[in-house]
């Protein structure tokens, strides 16, 4: 059984409290880090080949290195706890069951990038996780692990917890920063990039909850050790969220070398009710869909990519042969239409339009040109927007239609056909 890193404290009574966390070896990483040179910490994280676990998969150590050298302005560490990618729920568990791991990771990261103020942006719907995490922060302050001159180290670090208010786009790092600044969650045009000009105009590093939770272990046991747990492309284990048509939905921590097949069948018990696998989303709804012949891939940053998809947030959604793929497309299209922030034209206008077309197809009023229209519009818009939200929308749309075209065409053929249909419900209405 592979070693548990992120979930080692899960299921332990009161794992969210400081005494239990400490008892199980917590804050040893900080003990070590507080005596290290900041550059050495970053170096260790680079060696670990830790990749961002929120969705973008960017090498974390490299990101930390983007903070301008010799910058004397305040630098901010921002934790992206705005978990929102459909199919993903790992951060929720981390916040509730091991909040101190995040705090410790923040402390070490802050030392590495010379930050003295950290913000934790928790999605507004996560009320219970927010309460538990707030309690852990209070404990840390009381124990002198946060605040001024932490444990006599001379290092100051404050943590501000900031609740979101319901917008998936605030999981995009610069959308999050805009929201943190008290505005709509509109992503910022880049350049400048957050490491140069981020929250409140200052150099900022945004990291996912799980990514930071890896840091204490990396410092404690070395980057090389962490790297060795994974593949050449990516170090470590990670926590996969598996849902949909599996016997045992839930979290699975595994080395990133684990295959998608193994996740579905070995770890989660396979497809229930005697049904068969039809399709699977490997990395949250923003990842292109995969067919049963594409699941023998390692679930690291390169595996799904080799099949034209991505590991993203490692949110695995399994679909059996009862699923209507056109309906799945409609549901996903509805999600992106509802969550589009509206700032830039291609995404704002076409996510709503694509949803209308997908809805019309499911409703039995599809037209034969609809599929090519959706594909063409999606391909034309990809890469033209302010942020990757749109690419996360259309990559999947294209994969659903291209891989299951016959099913769409059959539905269209069996539909109403000739006469123009009544106007369909638009926007965020329930299907």
């Amino acid at each position, binding site marked *: 059984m592979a070693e548990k890193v992120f979930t080692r404290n899960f299921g332990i009574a009161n794992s969210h409290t400081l005494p239990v966390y400490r008892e199980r070896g917590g804050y040893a990483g900080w003990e070590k880090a507080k005596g290290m040179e900041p550059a050495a910490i970053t170096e260790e994280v680079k060696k670990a080949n830790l990749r961002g676990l929120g969705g973008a998969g960017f090498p974390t150590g490299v990101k930390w290195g983007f903070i301008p050298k010799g910058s004397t302005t305040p630098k901010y560490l921002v934790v992206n706890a705005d978990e929102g990618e459909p199919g993903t729920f790992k951060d929720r568990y981390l916040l509730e069951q091991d909040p101190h791991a995040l705090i410790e990771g923040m402390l070490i990261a802050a030392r590495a990038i010379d930050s003295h103020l950290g913000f934790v942006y928790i999605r507004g719907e996560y009320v219970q996780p927010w309460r538990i995490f707030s309690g852990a922060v209070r404990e840390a302050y009381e124990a002198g692990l946060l605040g001024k001159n932490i444990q006599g180290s001379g290092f100051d670090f404050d943590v501000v917890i900031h609740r979101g208010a319901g917008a998936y786009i605030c999981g995009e790092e610069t959308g999050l920063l805009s929201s943190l600044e008290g505005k709509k969650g509109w992503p910022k045009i880049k350049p400048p990039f957050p490491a140069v000009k981020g929250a409140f105009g200052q150099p900022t590093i945004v990291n996912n909850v799980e990514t930071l939770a890896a840091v204490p272990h990396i410092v404690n046991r070395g980057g090389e050790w962490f790297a060795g747990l994974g593949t050449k492309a990516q170090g470590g284990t990670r926590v996969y969220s598996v849902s949909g048509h599996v016997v045992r939905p839930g979290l699975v921590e595994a080395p990133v070398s684990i295959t998608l097949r193994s996740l579905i069948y070995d770890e989660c018990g396979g497809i229930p009710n005697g049904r068969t696998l039809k399709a699977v989303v490997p990395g949250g709804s923003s990842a292109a869909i995969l067919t049963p012949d594409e699941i023998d891939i390692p679930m690291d940053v390169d595996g799904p990519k080799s099949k034209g998809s991505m590991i993203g947030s490692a949110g695995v959604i399994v679909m059996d042969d009862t699923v209507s793929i056109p309906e799945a497309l409609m549901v996903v299209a509805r999600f992106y239409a509802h969550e589009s922030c*509206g700032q830039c034209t291609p995404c704002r206008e076409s996510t709503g339009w694509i949803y209308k077309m997908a809805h019309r197809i499911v409703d039995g009023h599809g037209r034969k040109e609809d599929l090519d229209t959706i594909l063409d519009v999606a391909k034309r818009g990809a890469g033209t927007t302010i942020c990757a939200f749109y690419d996360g929308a259309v990559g999947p749309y294209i994969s659903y239609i291209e891989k299951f075209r016959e099913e769409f065409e059959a539905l269209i053929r069996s539909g109403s056909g000739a006469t*123009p249909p009544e106007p369909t419900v638009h926007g965020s209405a329930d299907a």
Partner: protein
Amino acid sequence: MPKLTINGKEIEVPAGTNLIEAARLAGVEVPHYCYHPGLSIAGQCRLCMVDIDKVPRPQIGCNTLAADGMVVQTETDRVKDTRRSIMEFHLINHPLDCPVCDQAGECWLQIYYMKHGLYDPRMTDEKVHKPKALPIGPRVMLDAERCILCSRCVRFCDEITGTGELGIFQRGDHSEIGLFPGRALENKYSGNVIDICPVGALTDRDFRFQVRVWYLDSAKSVCNGCARGCNTEVHTSQRRPHHNQGRRIARLKPRLNPEVNRWWLCDEGRYGFGWIDDDTRLVAPARREAGALVETAWDDALGRLRSALGRYRPEEIGVIASPQMSNEDLYALRRLLDDLEIQSRDFRVPPREPGDEDSLLIRADKNPNTRGAELAGLAPGSGGLDTVGILRAAAEKKLKLLWIFHHDLLVSGLPEADVAAALSGAEMVVFQGPTAGKTSAAAHLVLPSAAYVERDGTFTNFQGRVQRFRTAVPPLGQALPDWEIVARLARALGAGGPIGQAERAEQVFTALAGAVPAFQEITYRALGDLGLLVRA
């Protein structure tokens, strides 16, 4: 100064220049909506994409600074195809309102669709519906469906006026431009959002449905509303006199002058043209006969004034000129008064209410040419009386001929009783101006002036900037430019010289430049479109 190549042409630009501006300097147009040189960068419309060597994907030009050695292509197949895509995205929910939309003919969706789109539309689903024909202030009409959400208007109200009335509410394709419910767009510069709106979302209530823009003619001018002298364009409807209720002036638009008003114009100035085509315009000379003003010919009117000028001694004549008059008008008058040795002359009349002023454009002095009047030498000469002195002398019957230019003295900041006493005390009151008022009604002789849009001339603003305004429409009725009335008078008096011989305003200006040191070496040609500062 970075040196870069745009479409094969090498060009050097100031540091900090973005690619849209760099291309403009190279004579290349990069289409765009949300970018505006006077506002912050938004990067929202995605239309200004260009290809840059060694960069895998097209980049927006507005947010990319020109760098040394950069090689930019704005007309690659990929850029053209991207523009076509972006045009389609913009038009997905746009209502086909062209037949009823005032923006038609100057709409950047139309213009860019014809240049960069030309695809067959395939959006046949129901478009998103939003409020239409919603007045959001006294000047501005909103059609939220037409809005392409470029956010220029929001940024204008935040960054230029600092009033923050507008916002973009909700999200996704339900995003909507609007005001806080129950409030209005009431800042003094609200009309500017109409200019900067690329489409027919924000339109002018005053101009609404009056005349199609392709019937308009345009002349470069300068606002006469205050001493700032904002540069304008006068748009006139002369080809369809049955439109715009027969009024010739259709609207005023600001003209870019980086030193004076940048891109902006205040509402007072923008909408201050109604008087030009109003019924109160004086369109013919008139003389008083048996208690009433009757129309007469120019020869007759000028003949009467000429005899009066001959009949009275110089110290019995008082002239109140106006800082509404142009440099040419004022100089011609000054030469005439010098020739006639009339020393009691002034141009200052206090306004009824103190003028409002702000840190943006608006000046408290609501006259366009106070500096010009000062420089032209229309302050009292040696031993001469000023405005108040002139009026008192007239009331005391020491002053017999009162020649008033433009000012409706009876509704000014001067005590009405004092003015009335002066008007009844003088033997002859001559009113010369464009518009009838209480003072003209009390005059013995009325001479109609052409409005500034009906002739050429120059004003000198509070900064000392001399700026040209150009003829937009011919004078109404028999009205003439003030300088020309003075020139005809001069000729009738047998005075030669440059004034008497002048046939065009420019000739008067040349004489002015030769005589007044501040205007030395300034010519109409040198003034160009943006004006020049007077010599210190």
